């Protein structure tokens, strides 16, 4: 499976380094964080230096419903001609949806993208809502409108859904039943699961969320629809095992887990502590924790080239390269062609993580709240619930 950079503010040299070192397969640009002209020249540069890289743009139309709010920070999205603030009542009309799609496809026509990701809104409450009806309308109309644009590239529809919607099993199942029966489906889906805050780990590491996120990937892939998971970060290999074609993560916490908070001014505060993604823990730990644990348990260190950056504490820019490297390696280890084997690999990885966490606890090494093993139970239970619901028992 492929791994993409979730590109945000301040990409610097990270992208080109990640591509040159083969840590990532491409990137997903964010209109909010980059002038459109800059984005075009960045894309052209990638095409020159890494012709094989996959390049996408997330239209971020999901901010449209509240773009008028004075507290919203839409950054450079306003550079895009297609973008405007719209109300739900406007978008309930299929002709408005068609217009948004058409204008966006015109906007990206000249960009040298691997595939075009169509705009959509954010389903912020439930799959049984006006927003879900509008979102389905965007997905249903995306391909027919795109075909008229004459663009030969593949088309991905966006599906941006809050984690609460994923917790209602019945509504969720009805939604995916509809989604997998489109008459003219897109070639793929760019899927984002939104939490209440990108710092709220428990929003993502939640049994129902993980199970349904996996189920969504499986149902789409079974029906021949490619799935790129935006902001999937550490969950990437778990989604790859059940059919995802790609996952993505970036350098700031709001590029690792998605929340609409990303479009509101940040509260400021100090720079986050540099962290190290330990494959065996399936989690990031602080530099100091890595140092302390590795004195007793060497296996906490991945044994990969970017480990060298952490001796001494690395520059911030190096953190994402280490993350990509570790995730790439986890993908290679866990994701196999066979789903049953892949799921076994995931279960074994969770078990290994549990054992090491137990050893760390027994040694009395304190861990900060984000470094602890809180993610393992939801991962394990999510995996179990997924298997049950997918009839893999």
């Amino acid at each position, binding site marked *: 499976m492929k791994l993409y950079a979730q590109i945000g503010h301040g990409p610097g040299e990270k992208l080109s380094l990640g591509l040159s070192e083969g840590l990532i397969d491409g990137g997903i640009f964010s209109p909010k964080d980059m002038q459109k002209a800059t984005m075009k020249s960045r894309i052209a540069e990638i095409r020159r230096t890494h012709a094989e890289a996959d390049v996408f743009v997330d239209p971020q139309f999901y901010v449209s419903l509240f773009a008028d709010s004075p507290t919203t920070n839409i950054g450079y999205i306003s550079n895009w001609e297609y973008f405007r603030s719209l109300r739900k009542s406007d978008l309930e009309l299929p002709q408005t949806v068609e217009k948004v799609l058409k204008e966006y496809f015109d906007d990206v026509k000249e960009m040298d993208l691997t595939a075009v990701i169509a705009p959509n809104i954010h389903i912020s409450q439930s799959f049984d809502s006006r927003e879900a009806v509008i979102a389905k309308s965007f997905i249903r109309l995306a391909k027919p409108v795109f075909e008229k644009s004459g663009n030969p590239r593949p088309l991905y529809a966006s599906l941006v859904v809050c984690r609460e919607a994923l917790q209602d099993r019945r509504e969720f*199942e*009805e939604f*995916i*039943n509809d*989604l*997998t*029966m489109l008459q003219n489906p897109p070639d793929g889906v760019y899927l984002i699961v939104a939490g209440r805050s990108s710092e709220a780990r428990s929003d993502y590491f939640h049994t129902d969320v993980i199970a349904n996120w996996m*189920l969504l990937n*499986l*149902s789409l892939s*079974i*029906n*021949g629809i490619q799935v790129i998971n935006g902001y999937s970060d550490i969950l990437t290999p778990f989604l790859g095992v059940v059919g995802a074609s790609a996952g993505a993560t970036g350098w700031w916490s709001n590029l690792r887990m998605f929340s609409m908070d990303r479009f509101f001014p940040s509260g400021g505060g100090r720079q986050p502590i540099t962290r190290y993604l330990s494959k065996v823990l399936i989690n990031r730990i602080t530099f100091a924790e890595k140092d302390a644990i590795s004195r007793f348990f060497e296996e906490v260190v991945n044994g990969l080239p970017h480990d060298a950056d952490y001796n001494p504490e690395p520059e911030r820019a190096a953190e994402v390269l280490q993350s990509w490297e570790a995730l790439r390696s986890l993908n290679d280890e866990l994701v196999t062609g066979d789903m049953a084997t892949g799921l076994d690999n995931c279960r074994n990885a969770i078990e290994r993580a549990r054992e090491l966490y137990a050893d760390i606890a027994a040694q009395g090494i304190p861990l900060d709240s984000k470094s602890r093993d809180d993610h393992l139970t939801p991962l394990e239970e999510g995996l179990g619930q997924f298997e049950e*619901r*997918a*009839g*893999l*028992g």
Partner: protein
Amino acid sequence: MENKPSIEDILREVPEASNFEELGCGGYKVAYKAQIGARVEAVKLACIPSDEKDPSVREENMRRIRREIDVLGKCSTAYLVKLGSIAPRDCTIGSNEYLVYSEEYIPGPPLRKLILDDYRPTVAELAEVGICLLQAVQELAAMNVIHRDIKPDNIIKSSDPDRPYVLLDLGIAFHVGGTPLTRDTNRVPGTLYYIAPEMLDVGFRQNLDYRADLYTIGLSLYEFASGDNPFAHRSDPQFTTLYRIKIQTPNALHHLRSDLPIDFCALVDQLMKKLPALRPSNIAALRKRLEGFR
């Protein structure tokens, strides 16, 4: 079927047919093999239930039977049974009203007979069954019709190489987006062991689509391949069977027929998934995959 008329009574109403031989009898319909001119056809006699207090009952049942005949008349695929030479007409025998018409007679055993004879088909035969049924379902789906009663009893292995397997009986076919076919919208029509799991959901008509037929194709292939319907335990009470259909994952087909290719078994298992979204829905792609096993 209650009020099944005698052959003599039928002969009076259908004088163009002779040599009646009963093929099967359902809840409201009886089928006979009969000679009509130089051809052998299947003559069907459908009882039209009515209610003296509510004339709409008769009208509704009449519409349902006529719809079945209408759909058959519109189908061009060779893998669905075709209408015969007797056009539908009303008749009254005793105090009961019937609709009589004929379909072509397909010589050959139903898959049920082969299963009972412990016949174990090869992967090529199974793929052939799947391809024929998918073609039939594809044509029905294009007309927004769901068969809803695909099962080994309704699949005939024919001796005609151009149509090796033919699907019968559109008696409970469902028209997506159409009016309800039965008055009791809570009643689940179909044969108990072959009901798709989504048909057990409250308000299932709202969401029913042709993937219910893909499920029963998968189940029929599974049963034909293994001789076992995983939900049919005759000693079980009905609710246990319904629970199995809704919840229980059948044994992987590969465990019962280890001689079949794993990929083929996985495809059959996938068609039998409880959640329609987990069944591959692209019929053309499914046919292509099955072509690879022929």
